[in-house]
């Protein structure tokens, strides 16, 4: 299974119709030309891909691929902790 960063990059490339080679782990939304409406679409795709719920108020703080990866890993950790 590809790691979280790779899955996030692939997902953003697919949903935003971007060249996957142009998305780096350190890329910001601004560099990629993505706005808040794109952010909503990405959050929707992430929730389906990783089976997590991203809170509405977390969205404004997600500004880069790195922020997303960190956020997803935190949500997954919280989910598995809750399941135990």
């Amino acid at each position, binding site marked *: 299974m590809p790691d979280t960063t790779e899955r996030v990059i692939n997902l953003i490339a697919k949903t935003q119709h971007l060249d996957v080679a142009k998305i780096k782990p350190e890329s910001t939304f601004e560099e990629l030309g993505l*706005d*808040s*409406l794109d952010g*909503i679409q990405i959050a*929707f795709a992430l929730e389906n891909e990783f089976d997590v*719920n991203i809170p*509405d*108020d977390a969205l*404004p703080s997600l500004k880069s691929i790195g922020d997303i990866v960190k956020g997803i890993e935190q949500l997954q950790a919280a989910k598995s902790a809750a399941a135990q």
Partner: protein
Amino acid sequence: MSRRVAITGAGMVCALGANRKDCWSALSRGESGIRPMTIVDPAQLRFQNAAEAIAFHPGDHFDDKELSLLDRFAQLAVAAAKEAIEDAGIEWTPALQSRTAVITGSCVGGQNTIDEGFVELYRKNGARVNPFTIPRTMANSGASHICMRYGLTGPAWNVSTACSSANHAIGHAFWMVRHGLADCAVTGGSEAPFNFGFLKAWEAMRVVAPDTCRPFDKDRKGLILGEGAGMLVLEDMEAARARGAQILGEICGFGMTSDAHHITQPTLEGPASAMRAALADAGLAADRIGYINAHGTGTPTNDGTETRAIREVFGSHAAKLAVSSTKSMHGHALGAAGALEAVATVLALRNGLLPPTANYVTPDPACDLDIIPNQARALQVEAALSNSFAFGGLNAVLAFRAAP
């Protein structure tokens, strides 16, 4: 031909009450109608609160046979129109009926009916849906039922411009009466957005607050959806005076613009130019405006942008303007929002009392207007604006004056 246009009747039903009197009573007390949701079970939703018209009982207005043809949004439209027409005390004649326009606003029309049909097909594996799904769902059904009930045979249509629907409807009705294309108009908007499918769509949009609607507050978290209807009766001022009608107020300007920018993010210039256009149409200098009923959705984006747009249009006069968002009380009723706010604005001018922005706790430097926090203000102003700025970048602003 250019005539002055009187508002001779008004009807309102929303989370604040089933009639105008109860709604105004709540508005003047700063009482919010936002409560835990009941029409839809919110267990599978990210937000739990809504501004439902809980005091509205369809059976008070319609028999079962009539109800079979009326989605909730059309029920609300007809109920508010009935109150407005009775309030205006109009005696219909065939001549007047043929010269009366009915122009309504609704963003999504009979969504509840189509949602019920989808549940039947996709969840219950049914083979057929309600045979009245089409006539109940169509967004003009509110306007059509108002026409049929009162025999109004003049121009009639429905406007759908998301959250600006009602302001676009009222503005066009105003222009038709002003320019002699109609002698009378029944106009406003209605919306009933509470069904599971549509609420999930709002959830996905991530603009609905998990708590309440706090316009212009630093801790605002989004809008709260509302339902309801507002309707006005507009008449040629001279004809209204000649028949001894009550004059609740005057509608005197309408301005509309398009941002031509982004499907959900507003610009500064679009709203500002719509306010300027409404002032120009009314022939009012900016410093004559004493109150603005703001679009004020309570979303992080709208309220800051609207504040800057108001400052841009009004300059130093912005410091003397009272501005409030009554969405803090009746919620965001989408295509009906402008109609509820038009009634609130007309009553504010009539009663010399400006309704407040409820639920206000923490000032936001980005929203540094006099927003009438929590308590209504006794102040007779000469003229007022009511703003609506829709998704899709479509802006519509109405201007009103106190009755002459």
